[in-house]
């Protein structure tokens, strides 16, 4: 059916994307091979934010229509989102170590993504603490909406907080990107988005089956 096809498509795209990023694309001059981690790091970060946008839309849909399907999508997207956010932070750290010399720095982007991670955790924690299914869905939807609206504010505030006091951190890849690098990046972004969609679809289905199971 559609979902397994999505999975295969994602795998194919990832395969292609990784080959492009780690094989075909040229080696970056100043940072060396570690720079190639951008080909997974950027997609991870992109999906991290996309997943929250989906939580936002699904939460509104749930409160508006009381659709159990919307609630499952929100739940699944938050779970996928927290994983991708964690991966984004981890790959960002790995990238940063040889480049900046430390595993962590409180620069605008890392801090922003770290806060996103914490927001996801809070959302999943709330869901885990409410036994009543319907109330859990409702409260999670309210939190999802508030958190999603807050994310742009978090972004701006953290960015202003950092950039007005020290020069902007090195933005790897900010110099005009040659076509091959850009293409490899885009392929990976699409590939991991497909992977995310596959996870959400699969997880939603599992959640539905779990509900329908007799006690």
């Amino acid at each position, binding site marked *: 059916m559609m979902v397994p096809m999505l999975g295969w498509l994602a795998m194919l795209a990832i395969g292609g994307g990784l080959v492009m990023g780690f094989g075909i694309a040229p080696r970056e001059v100043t940072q060396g091979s570690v720079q190639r981690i951008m080909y997974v790091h950027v997609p991870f970060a992109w999906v991290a934010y996309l997943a929250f946008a989906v939580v936002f839309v699904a939460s509104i849909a749930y409160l508006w229509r009381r659709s159990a399907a919307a609630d499952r999508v929100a739940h699944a997207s938050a779970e996928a989102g927290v994983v991708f956010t964690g991966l984004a932070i981890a790959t960002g750290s790995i990238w940063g170590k040889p480049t900046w010399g430390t595993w962590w720095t409180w620069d605008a982007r890392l801090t922003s993504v770290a806060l996103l991670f914490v927001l996801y955790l809070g959302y999943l924690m709330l869901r885990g603490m409410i*036994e*009543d*299914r*319907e109330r859990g869905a409702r409260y999670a939807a309210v939190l999802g909406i508030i958190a999603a609206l807050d994310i742009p504010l978090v972004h701006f505030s953290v960015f202003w907080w950092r950039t007005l006091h020290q020069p902007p951190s090195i933005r790897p890849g900010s110099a005009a990107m040659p076509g091959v690098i850009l293409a490899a990046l885009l392929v990976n972004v699409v590939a991991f988005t497909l992977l995310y969609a596959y996870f959400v679809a699969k997880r939603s289905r599992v959640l539905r089956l779990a509900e329908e199971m007799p*006690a």
Partner: protein
Amino acid sequence: MISLRGITKTFGPTAVLDGVTLDVTAGECVALLGANGAGKSTLLRIVATALRPTKGTLTLWNEDAVRAPERARGRLGFVAHGAHVWDDLTAIENLRVWRTLANRPSHADALMSALAIVELDGAAHERVRTFSAGMKRRLSLARWVDGGVDLLLLDEPFTGLDQRGKKWLTEFLLAFKARGGTALMATHDFSRSLDLADRLAILADGVIAADQPRAGVDTGELHALYRLHTGGAE
């Protein structure tokens, strides 16, 4: 007035109510009997729109009360276990808050006359913390004693009342019925059920196991019927 079809409520894996079907017509008083933990309170809360059912339909005054509970709220009175009172406020202060929120007259005269009807005017300026269970329940009723609602939902209203309190409540409900009021009452008190109810319903195993007119049923028969459906627990 009230129409329940297939009402189901699950808390986690447990189904407390599993397909309840019940009708209450205008002017009727229905006594809902059942063992402890049978789900009487849960059912009443659902009818009051304080709780959403997992499945099923609830119709109040011919409108879908699950989808649009707001329409029913304010038209019914719910006397619950907790009595909905704030312990640190006085009786008259409690009533003032409730009447204001219910958009009903809340000036001092209206409040005092309502308290007089429930025989609490003497304790109007005392903190509810000092009240007995019966007094709290009467205060809870004071919200609607002078008209305002024609449907009352009562969750074990006689429990914790002394003889005098029970007599007062019985007379009040009889007067309410005489005015054309409708009532659905969950109770353990068989004799009051027979005094007040037009119909008797027994809730067991998550469904209405018995639903019949009160006429012609005496105490002995009621006990037998109850034992039959609830497996002996009383």
